[in-house]
C-alpha cells in the first residue's frame, strides 16, 4: 500500500515512465490505482524519432505490470516522510 499512497501524492507532477520495452513516456501524472497502473496526460515519448508509434496520443494508460522505472521530480520526494512511512509499514501499523 505504501507505494500506492506514495504515487497518489505525486498526482499532478511531471514524471517519466520507462517501460519494459524500453519506451520512455513523459507526462503529467493523472492517477494511479492499486495495481500501480498509471494514467498520464499531455504525454510525449522521449525519443519520438525512434518511437513514432504514439505520435497521435496525448493521454495514456500504462499497465503497472510493464513499468520498469518511474523517474520523479526531485521536489516530489520528501525523504523524511518516506522514511517514517516505510518504518510504519514495516511494523505493520
Amino acid at each position: 500500500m505504501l507505494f500506492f499512497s506514495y504515487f497518489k501524492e505525486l498526482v499532478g507532477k511531471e514524471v517519466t515512465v520507462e517501460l519494459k520495452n524500453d519506451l520512455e513516456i513523459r507526462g503529467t501524472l493523472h492517477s494511479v490505482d492499486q495495481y500501480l497502473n498509471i494514467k498520464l496526460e499531455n504525454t510525449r515519448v522521449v525519443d519520438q524519432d525512434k518511437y513514432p508509434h504514439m505520435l497521435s496520443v496525448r493521454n495514456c494508460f500504462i499497465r503497472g505490470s510493464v513499468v520498469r522505472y518511474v523517474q520523479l521530480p526531485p521536489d516530489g520526494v520528501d525523504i523524511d516522510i518516506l522514511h517514517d512511512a516505510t518504518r510504519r509499514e514495516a511494523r505493520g501499523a
Partner: protein
Amino acid sequence: MATGPGLESLVDQTISVITNDGRNIVGVLKGFDQATNIILDESHERVYSTKEGVQQLVLGLYIIRGDNISVVGEIDDELDSSLDMSKLRAHPLKPVIH
C-alpha cells in the same frame, strides 16, 4: 478502493493499444474489466517497418487479454489525421521483457 486510472473515460473512443509483443492495435474501445482485458471494435493493426510506410491490417472485433497489454493511448483524431502514415518509418516496438 479509491477510483484509479480506469478506462471508463475511453469507452466508445478510438484508442491505440501497444501489446507486450510490440504490436500496435487501433480500434474503438467497447469494454474492459479489472484485469485490463479489452474489447476493441473496428480494429486494425498498424505495422511499422523501416523499409516502407506504416501498413494497416484490418482485424475487426478483437478481445485482447490484459496480461498482454502494455499501453492504452487515447487517440487525438486531429493529430492522427495530420500524420502521413505512408511516410512514417520505424523499427517495430521491442517486446516487453519482464
